[in-house]
Structure formats: structure tokens, C-alpha cells
């Protein structure tokens, strides 16, 4: 029995199809996978910069202290010294960037009650009051100044 090209023709055709398929895959892959994929690991390295590019909504304590030195100085001696401005005033990155001229004041009761309402589970040494008995329906800022809350 003699081997002839005719017997192997179908194999050559098959090999050609595989070769073309492989080429198409290689070209498509090179086109679709970003250049920075795999430079740091099995991910797109540029995704790190995408995440970094976002604008912060909270300005951060340092940004507040740049302008509001009087309040920061007052608070430094008071019991709220370690509480950052945005803990009560909310996110004010827009104000720090100059987009919002005059942000809304925090509520003079709800803001305080959030932390200082007596509740089980709070640490013993943390200052709390039973709000209804302590203040009735009055706002907290009737008696306390928020930046220096201890009544002199």
C-alpha cells in the first residue's frame, strides 16, 4: 500500500482551518486586550488610576482648618477636639472647592442626638443623656454651643 497526498488532503485542509482560526484569535486578542493588562498582575493596571481619579466628596479636616482657624482653635480646648468638622457638618468637599458658597447648618438637635442619646450598647464612659427627660422638645444648641459643648 502506498501513501498518497490524496489520503492526507483532508488533514491539510483541517490544519489550514486551525491555522487560520489561531491567527484570527491571535489578532483579535492583540486588538482587544489592553496593553496594560498583566503588567502588575492578572488585571488592567489602568484601573488603579481610574479609581484614583475620582473627586473626594469629603474635604478632610486639614482643608477645613485652612480657613476656619477660629473654630479649630476653639474646639481644640473643648471636648469635641477629636471630632472632625465633617462628622457633624456632613460632606463639604464642594464647599472646600468653592462650588457651594454657604452650606446648610446641621440640625441643632438631630445631629447631637445621633451620638449622645442614651442607648444600651454604648460604652459606659461615653457621655449620653436620656434626650426627652434632659431637654424636652428644646434644641440642644439652646444651652450648649456645639464646638465647645460644656456649659461654663
Amino acid at each position, binding site marked *: 500500500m502506498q501513501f498518497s497526498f490524496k489520503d492526507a488532503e483532508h488533514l491539510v485542509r483541517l490544519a489550514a482551518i486551525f491555522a487560520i482560526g489561531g491567527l484570527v484569535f491571535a489578532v483579535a486578542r492583540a486588538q482587544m486586550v489592553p496593553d496594560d493588562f498583566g503588567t*502588575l498582575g492578572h*488585571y488592567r493596571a489602568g484601573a488603579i488610576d481610574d479609581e484614583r481619579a475620582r473627586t473626594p*466628596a*469629603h474635604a478632610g479636616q486639614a482643608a477645613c482648618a485652612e480657613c476656619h482657624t477660629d473654630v479649630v482653635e476653639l474646639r481644640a480646648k473643648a471636648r469635641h477636639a477629636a471630632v472632625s468638622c465633617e*462628622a457633624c457638618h456632613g460632606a463639604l468637599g464642594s464647599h472646600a472647592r468653592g462650588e457651594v458658597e454657604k452650606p446648610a447648618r446641621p440640625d441643632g438637635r438631630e445631629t447631637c442626638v445621633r*451620638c449622645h442619646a442614651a442607648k444600651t450598647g454604648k460604652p459606659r464612659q461615653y457621655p449620653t443623656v436620656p434626650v426627652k427627660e434632659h431637654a424636652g422638645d428644646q434644641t440642644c444648641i439652646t444651652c450648649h454651643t456645639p464646638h465647645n459643648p460644656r456649659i461654663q
Partner: protein
Amino acid sequence: MMDRRDFLIVGGRILVMTAASAAALEHVLAGTPEAADTYTTVDHWWAMTIDIRKCIGCGNCVKACKVENGVLDEPFYFRTWVERYHIDPADPEHPIVDSPDGGKNGFPEKYEDGVGKTFFVPKLCNHCTHSPCVQVCPVGATFLTPDGVILVDKDYCVGCRYCIQACPYGSRYFDPRTNTADKCTLCYHRITKGLKTACVEVCPTGSRQLADLKNPDDPIHTFLRENAVDVLKPQMATGAKVFYASLDGSVR
């Protein structure tokens, strides 16, 4: 008349000056020195410390996180949330856990003072060193950055939700706006600019602290040394990097 020697000297100077001025211009275009990017990922290894004894369950962190990251307001989308644990001394193995609206607006009084034990446990992504979510992602859309933060590449995520199932801490959710998985980024856009994370920024008692394990002066080293510290589900060997001080054994 300029000879060859002079020509070379003058020509050389012009070349050097051009290069120097080009470099200077580039520096100017990059902005003021403070604004120029000096952040190097490999110099940091971010973590967080949470002191259970200091948490008052005010929910400031949950609220600030939603604002900072534009998280949907429905009570099942959270990047961080606070759980209230109540342990009845008659049945200490089955703590009662609740987290109304993720603790965003505090906790309505439910337990009688002096009966059993009640405490608050803030939770968030643990930014695991050996993270199950990264291991299961089939497309490389979620990954550990060189500075130790787990991020999601929303351009690459195909929305298969494997990672949401794989996370032992329930830290992930599916964002219906983008049809991708989403989670806490440890405020990567803030910490790489020298700011604290939003939750740490607004925590009134300092219960939460952002920490950099590669910084030898970071208070985390004292924190780890001087407290009874644990991570959540240590048996999962995830290499979790959110360290809790005084974590009760009943916390899951």
C-alpha cells in the same frame, strides 16, 4: 569669525539649554510641587483598625460612605455597615444581630440596659491579602493593588456575581446601574491623596482608624501590640486586614 571650536561650544550650550527648558516647562505643566503626584503604591500596605469598645453605633460612617461613594440608598447596598450584637447570658451561642438600614440612622432602642451584653460591630471589606473574591474572578476584574486594596475594574467586570458569593464577609453587592459588582474601595481616591477614608474622617470617637502597615510610625503597630486583636473569620485564612480590638467571640 567663529571657528569650529566655538561653534561646537555654542551649539552644545543651545542643545543643553533647550533640553533643560523643556524639562522645566514639563515641570510647570505638571502643576505646583504639592499637587504633583508623589504617591508610590509599593510604599504602602493599607489596613484598618476598629476598636469595638469605642463604637457608639451612631451610623456616621455608613452615611458618609454612601455620600462619598454614591452608593444607592436602598437598605441592601452598603460598602460599610454597622451591626448591633446582643448576647443573652442564657444563650450566649446565639447572639441576636440587627442592622436597621445598615445602622445608617443609628439604632432604635430595643434592649433593656443591664440585661445581657450589647455592642456594635462596624463592618466593611477586609481587603484580604489572600482574597477569595480575587481568586474566583474569571476575567481579572477584581484585584489586589500593590498597596493592598481590593478594587473592582468596572470596565472589565462581566457581572457574573461569583465574587459576591465568594466573599465570606458579605462585603460585595451588585450595582444595578452599572451591572457590575461593587464594594468598598477603602476610599482609594482619598487615601492616595493623603486623606483619610470617609468613614474614618467622620467617626466621632476614633473607633475606626485608617492604617498603613508599611509605615513604621503608624499607630497600628501599637494598636496590634497592646490590644486583644482579631480579624473576622480567621479560620477562612483570607489574610483579612481589618483588625478589631476586643472582638467578642460571638461575632460572625
